[in-house]
């Protein structure tokens, strides 16, 4: 199973980035937190328009099944993610990707709905 996290830096101990479309980086891992690898989002966040849908496309290209992010994606991005069957979860407070993973594993995260 492939998981994606919106993060503020390329480090599993870095804080999560609450933003989806304008997240600094995307952490990709599996259900045992192997890896992880990081996807550059510079090209997406540099654009003035439609960062959310582009980010959803990036998520789709990596066949992500579970996305964990803070504020939740907007309407257009959500439409794409649900089309692909990606499950989206949100957390609260300031936590690291590692902590978000632990909370997800324990089933403590909230499924996101618009």
């Amino acid at each position, binding site marked *: 199973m492939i998981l994606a996290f919106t993060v503020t830096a390329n480090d599993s101990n870095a804080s999560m980035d609450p933003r989806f479309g304008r997240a600094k980086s995307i952490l990709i891992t599996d259900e045992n937190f192997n890896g992880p690898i990081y996807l550059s989002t510079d090209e997406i966040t540099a*654009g003035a*328009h*439609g*960062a959310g*849908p*582009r980010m*959803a*496309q990036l998520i*789709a290209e990596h066949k992500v099944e579970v996305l964990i992010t803070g504020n939740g994606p907007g309407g*257009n991005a959500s*439409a*794409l993610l649900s*089309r*692909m069957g990606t499950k989206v979860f949100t957390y609260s407070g300031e936590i690291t990707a590692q902590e978000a993973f632990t909370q997800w594993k324990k089933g403590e995260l909230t499924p996101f709905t618009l």
Partner: protein
Amino acid sequence: MQITIASGKGGAGKTMLATNLAHFLSQSGQVTLLDCDVEEPNCALFFPGVYTSLETVSVYYPKWDSDRCTDCGVCSGMCRFNALIALAGEVIVFDKMCHGCYACSELCPQGALPMVPRGIGVVQSRKTGNLVVTEGRINVGEEQAVPMVKAALRHRDPSCTIIDGPPGTACSAQEVLAHSERIILVTEPTPYGLHDLALITELCLKLGKEPLVVVNRSREPFGPMTAFLKETETPLFIPENKDIAHYYSSGEVAWPHVPVLRDVLEQLRERICHE
């Protein structure tokens, strides 16, 4: 003459001045009052009647043809607005984000993205006496006002049009200002009024048009605004006046009943008609 009434700050008195000025000028000739504040047009409220002309306005956006698509992804990489996204086996179009540039449609090797129309609003007109009132009205939920503003601007009367512009300094306001021969900026003597007046004045000057400032609800002098106005064309002042507010909120033009407003309109006519 095409005169636009604009304001950086909303609620400064733009529509009040536009409706009163247009009605005042129509006492001595044909005038078109064109409401380009397409997201909330309200000039027509002051001139009740039946609309006698109606034009629907459409924009064009790409519609995905799944039978023709070969999933090459050319379209998706090309859109500067990310209004269409290619997923595996599918292209999703967000029609309201599309700016109608046709790039995806023209460059799709399979012709799988034909452009199709979508109605975004109407331009409608009615006439009372010498005054033609025309408004652009965009549909609720549309995200881009500029195509609607452009459609409304096509209804200008070359002899005399008073345009009620969109507030602020965003794209739709710029579209209107760029098509104006004369710009009247309405502001109020407050820090907020001055802040937004400075922004829109800078915009007008960038467009090569020196605006005329009207300070509405003028009370005791507001020092920083007085200093700012020293650098502009001599401004006009509408004093704070409860009667103007009363007539405005009743949906009536105030100038026939309020001499101080009438004075300002006469001065405006002197200034703008003698150029």
